């Protein structure tokens, strides 16, 4: 199924009217909705029935990878050039754990960032057609992807849900 690139965007002044509009549209069968807002709000995620973010998996993989890298780096390089210092064993785990810890955090952080960019589809060169600068300031937006034939029905729904403005994206 290909997603239509056309749709309608409604702008809202209040959070509660936005949430009501989301509920109404979902009831009317429009599920391909995207909210745009200046602040994150759990109520929006709940209204849209979005699953939890998978970024945590990236963090976990990064941390594990970092820990393994730390052990391999310290142990392998020490064995590669075995030079006894202060009468300590060549593979001295306690001090190596410090390197392991730091690399766990470093790789965990880098993959968290990577996971966020990948999942949030960032960076983006062009903003989506539904974007309006006011959605970063003091308005909430609701982007409804739908076929051109549905435009009038969706516009009516948005207006009856007290959208301040309704804007059609037709290309």
């Amino acid at each position, binding site marked *: 199924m290909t997603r239509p690139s056309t749709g309608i965007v409604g702008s809202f002044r*209040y959070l509660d009217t936005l949430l009501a509009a989301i509920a109404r549209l979902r009831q009317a069968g429009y599920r391909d909705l995207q909210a745009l807002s200046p602040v994150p709000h759990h109520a929006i995620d709940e209204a849209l029935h979005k699953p939890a*973010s998978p970024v945590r998996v990236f963090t976990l993989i990064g941390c594990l990878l970092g820990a393994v890298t730390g052990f391999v780096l*310290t142990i392998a390089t020490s064995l590669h050039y075995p030079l006894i210092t202060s009468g300590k064993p060549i593979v001295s785990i306690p001090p190596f754990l410090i390197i392991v810890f*730091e690399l766990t955090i470093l790789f965990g952080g880098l993959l968290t960032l990577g996971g966020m960019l990948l999942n949030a589809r960032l*960076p983006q060169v062009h903003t989506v057609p539904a974007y309006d600068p006011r959605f970063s300031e003091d308005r909430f937006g609701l982007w409804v992807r739908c076929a051109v034939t549905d435009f009038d029905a969706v516009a009516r729904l948005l207006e009856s849900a007290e959208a301040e403005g309704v804007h059609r994206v037709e290309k």
Partner: protein
Amino acid sequence: MSELTYGQVDRDILRAMEAPGRLYYIVFLLNLLVLAWGAFAWRYQIVHGMGVSGLTHPVMWAIYITNFVFWVGIAHSGTLISAILYLFRVRWRAGVYRTAEAVTVFALFTAGLFPLIHLGRPWFFYWLLPYPQLGGLWVNFRSPLVWDVFAVMTYMIISMLFFFTGLVPDVAVVRNRTRGWRHRLYAFLAQGWQGTDRQWRHYKAAYLFLAALATPLVISVHSVVSWDFAQSIVAGWHSTIFAPYFVAGAIHSGLAMVITLLIPLRRIFRLNAYVTQSHLENLAKLIILTGLIVGYAYIVETYIAWYSNNVPEWQRFTFQVTGEYAIPFWIMILFNSLVPLLFFVKRIRTSTPWLFGIAILINIGMWTERFVIIVTGLAHEYDPYSWGLYFPTWVDISITLGSFAWFFFWFLLFAKLLPVVSIAEVKEELPPPMKTVGDEA
């Protein structure tokens, strides 16, 4: 903050980013002059060798390492405010965390220079890193100096990630309101941010995990820095209390630095609605806590020097308290552990001049603390034959002043180019605009 609206927040915070006045340029230029003088002193030291600084046997670590430890310490409070208070969901952090985080990043820029300045041949700095080379030689992972490289570099990278990630939704607001080269700069920093529910969902998850990773990291970094000393057998350094002692001291000095910078910032940019008196008061309360921990550490050090019945340990202690460096020692005791107790008085911690004055004294005291630890330890080691003193030359002093100018260079740029208070998080703390009053989601 409840009377504010989203639009008002944008206007107030962006106003701080308007073209600067003449005073800003004058301060910036003066700062550049000091920075240039510091750079000249470093060049002089590279050309003529380390002998031009005051470093000599037996005190081979002195003011440069003092500066290194001081600046790493300054960085710590930023992470405390931005990451640890975020995990604890402390609401007042929204107004101050951007500044604190900027302090972290710039303090690390400064701290990172000092190990390089301290190298006799700074162009071989990459010898500190593990990389495959022809001889098959690798770095010694049993050395605290190598732990330090890993800890400080990880800290620098993670705090920059945290700083720039936190900026993304804010610079998107700025991007929409600017033209020309500024627009291109903010468009790059915003990475195409639009505030869709998908972006916010992943962004909040990532931010939470970055905070969770930064929290243990910040504790580890100053612990590792303290082990540079504690792992040696120098009397006065070889102590298990060093890690918590250094971490508390780091946060102590960092909080003082944040207060020192926030007070002029909120006045100049008229941000009193965002950085309120109660923010400063809360920071002052945190300083009471860290000041008490630092004071406790001083007492324990004294007690152990006596109770251990160890001759070099006790000799070094008496030297510290009554010797050539006694004045810095008593400055450290007075400014770090006694003066902050004044914050127990509500009238003092709510008065801006008192806050500013005490914060400056703590900054001085904490710098002195590092100097006392490092120099008195080395000046008075085991064998009386090898005792000696350290006095800074013009090169040491110029490079130290230059490092402050380097820090303020970045901070002054930040104050004008980026939102000094987080727009998105301040809005998040406000009640969302609702049509039906009393029906809060």
